[in-house]
């Protein structure tokens, strides 16, 4: 089997790399998580200890709210942009997707410029009502940061699906008497669901694990990634950090797997 040897040769670099720098480190991480003072109970510390549990709840709520908001605006914007030609469309799309390349820290800085102490909103409210409204470092600021980070990605995913939607499907629904609400409910959204699952899961996973934005903005908020960071660097509690990391990784990975299987099922029309 010559071709089999050749296949092995092709996959060999990827296999070695993955083993050395992904599988072994993750195994080490798992070992570390189980080696704390509580032993195996360390894995469940995120649920058993109130401080961690609260942090997990805040992060989950924030991620869910971000996901819902991102899906809502991205779906509206995608439908507005799909099948519509106008001058400057390319430029508009570039502006909407430009922040794709921004790391979380830069996104955090964008939110500071928007709602920080010297921010745009603050200076406007100062001249209007006399108070400098600062929200960048609050939960709301973090939410805006995650939104800023997620919208371009999710918008691109949903826009691709919206462009593929046959316009005559909407026309057919209209000819049968369907109004705007019925068209959304029965025709457009079902067609966009696979993309919405994929985009939504990506958004959720990113929001759960986002570190850069939180690092810049969440000086007073203990979202889970910040918790891992402080446990590891400040408290030098490696096993605790590892246990929380594993819990977080499982949550984000599961979200992506569930979304992918749902999207698949929808595409296959089961």
């Amino acid at each position, binding site marked *: 089997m010559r071709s089999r040897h050749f296949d092995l040769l092709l996959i060999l670099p990827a296999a070695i790399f993955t083993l050395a720098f992904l599988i072994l*480190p993750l195994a080490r*991480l798992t070992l570390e998580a189980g080696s704390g003072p509580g032993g195996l109970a360390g894995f469940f510390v995120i649920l058993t200890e109130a401080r961690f549990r609260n942090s997990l709840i805040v992060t989950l709520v924030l991620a869910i709210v971000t996901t819902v908001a991102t899906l809502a605006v991205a779906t509206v914007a995608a439908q507005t942009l799909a099948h519509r030609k106008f001058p400057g469309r390319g430029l508009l799309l*570039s*502006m909407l997707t430009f922040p794709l390349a921004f*790391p979380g820290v830069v996104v955090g*800085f964008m939110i500071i410029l928007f709602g920080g102490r010297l921010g745009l909103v603050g200076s406007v409210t100062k001249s209007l009502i006399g108070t400098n409204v600062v929200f960048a470092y609050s939960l709301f600021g973090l939410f805006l940061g995650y939104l800023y980070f997620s919208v371009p990605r999710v918008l691109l995913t949903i826009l691709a699906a919206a462009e593929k939607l046959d316009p005559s499907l909407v026309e057919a629904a209209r000819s049968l008497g369907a109004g705007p609400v019925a068209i959304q409910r029965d025709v457009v959204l079902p067609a966009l669901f696979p993309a919405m699952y994929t985009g939504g899961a990506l958004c959720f996973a990113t929001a759960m694990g986002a570190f*850069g934005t939180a690092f810049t903005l969440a000086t007073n908020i203990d979202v889970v990634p910040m918790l*891992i960071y402080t446990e590891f660097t400040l408290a030098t509690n490696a096993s605790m950090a590892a246990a929380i990391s594993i819990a977080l990784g499982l949550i984000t990975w599961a979200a992506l797997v569930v979304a992918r299987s749902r999207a698949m099922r929808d595409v296959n029309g089961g």
Partner: protein
Amino acid sequence: MRIRWTTCAGIVITALLTLFLIVPVLLSVYAGLTVNYARGISAGFTLDWVRQVWGLYSDTVLRSLVVALLTLILTLLIGVPGAYALVRRGGRFARIVEEIVTLPVAIPGLALALAMILLYGGFGAFRQSTLFVVIGHVLFTLPFMMRSVIAILETIDWRTLDEGAASLGSPAWRRFVDVILPNVRPGIVAGALTVVTLSIGEFNLTWMMHTPMTKTLPVGLADAYASMRLEIASAYTLVFLVMVIPLLVGVQAVADLSEKRTKS
């Protein structure tokens, strides 16, 4: 022509969204070039802040470029043959391997960095070298390169190409180099642009994995955001924007090109 209220609402929301995304960027560019942000336009414009940033952080800019380049080379060497192998084998096994290789997309970078540090933290020289950061970047960007190549392989009839070349007497590795690689070039180019863009902007892994001697641009940015005045932070951001804009334009151009190619 009557415009329905739903369309109106859509246009308004899209416009607001665009403003939300783009106004802070413009503010940042403005802040990086203004003499004094708090005093406004009347203070005038200057390149002093950019000059100061260059003096303070030019090493991070150069290191980010080096890291991105090394990351690209490694993802090409590992990812392109790997992607072809996965498509060739197909089936359950290939799906499992793909799932494992793409795991770094699903797991937060912080967790991966922690895992790496726990395992290799003891290897001083490796831990403190730029290579450590590069490995982290390869870990994170490899799935993107592989997916990009796999996507193209799935649209071309690679089996016929391979069998055609085999019928002409070409050995397996020459078929890969002479026939498969040229035909997946659009995927490689798109993947390469994505890898470089992601690498230049990578923070989550890098923040944990870097040492004072291996700071990259985003690490420097986080530093500046925390400790420097707004004008310097903005000027630094401006440097970052100037670095990624050509990459984004490139990604767009490649996407347009392949769209045209599939249409014709």
